[in-house]
């Protein structure tokens, strides 16, 4: 297939997916725009090597999450703001700048999650199976289930506040 036609079709199909994944990692709209562009470029490069071992959607999601993790590592400020690896649910910090009277929407709540939980819950919401999530993240399905359960508990609590 012509390379340009291929990337046109892929980006047209998956731009909303890429936008949602990027939004779960980056709250700044300008940085998010750069991140989406970076992900799209990585997807194009990776398309040549797609061996159909998974669905194209899973492949694209894997690349997107990898680029987002890379982005988080590079953006130190972003990492400090979003990192929420809390052990004790009672001590969860309030989200930056949010009016405590305003209910969080789901995306804002997901942005507060640590990366471990964020990846699992966003992929579940995108309709991926546990097996697909496990292959993208490089963990087993039991770990996916555990992280999903924990992420859901955290989201439930925050969305009730």
């Amino acid at each position, binding site marked *: 297939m012509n390379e340009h036609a291929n990337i046109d079709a892929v980006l047209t199909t998956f731009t909303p997916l890429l936008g949602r994944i990027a939004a779960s990692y980056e709250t700044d709209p300008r940085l998010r725009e750069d991140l989406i*562009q970076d992900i*799209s*470029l990585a997807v194009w490069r*990776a398309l040549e090597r797609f061996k159909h071992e998974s669905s194209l959607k899973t492949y694209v999601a894997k690349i997107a999450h990898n680029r987002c993790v890379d982005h988080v590592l590079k953006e130190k400020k972003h990492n400090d703001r979003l*990192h929420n690896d809390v052990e004790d649910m009672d001590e969860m910090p309030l989200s930056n700048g949010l009016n405590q009277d305003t209910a969080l929407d789901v*995306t804002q709540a997901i942005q507060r999650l640590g*990366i471990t939980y964020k990846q699992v819950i966003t992929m579940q919401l995108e309709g991926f199976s546990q097996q697909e999530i496990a292959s993208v993240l490089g963990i087993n399905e039991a770990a996916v289930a555990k992280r999903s359960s924990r992420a859901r508990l955290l989201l439930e609590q925050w969305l009730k506040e």
Partner: protein
Amino acid sequence: MDEQLKKWKQSYTESTPTVDASLLIKQVKAARKKEQVKRWLDILSGCAVALFCIFTAVYYVDTAVNRGLLLALSLVPVCASIWAYRKSMSKDDATQMNVQQLLTLKRNALLNQLQYWRLSAWVLCLLFIGLFAMLFFNSSDAASDKMWQTIMLVQAPIVAFTVVRYVLLKRALPAALKKIDNVL
């Protein structure tokens, strides 16, 4: 998908950020083209420098030793271009990995980076000591001494930069590794 997830999915999908797909495609194509031009420029410039060294060696150099040195030197830009090209390709490999593999790769890259600068610092320091020894023990005439002194003067900031870079990287390594570990 249970009811709770379905409800969350609806809210999550509704808050999809607006992305102009056609503009994004245009931007990505421009970035891709720029990337490909850069790759080719790297390769071509490396080849150009190598050809220049070969040309100079063949037509402008008198002695066999100098000719041999220049011909050997011509390999350096070619190797540098190949290295740069392979590095850019390995960046593509990284996107294929799962997240765990990617983070392991990043950890290893940091450790390799430190090893590279440690080795460079040691080698340059030893070479510098060797230069000093040449100057100190092999002093023949003022012109020769001046040449070695000039070489040392030129090499000194390079050695200093390498050592400082190594020390700074070593200090920053634990925090950098912790940042990667904290991602998960």
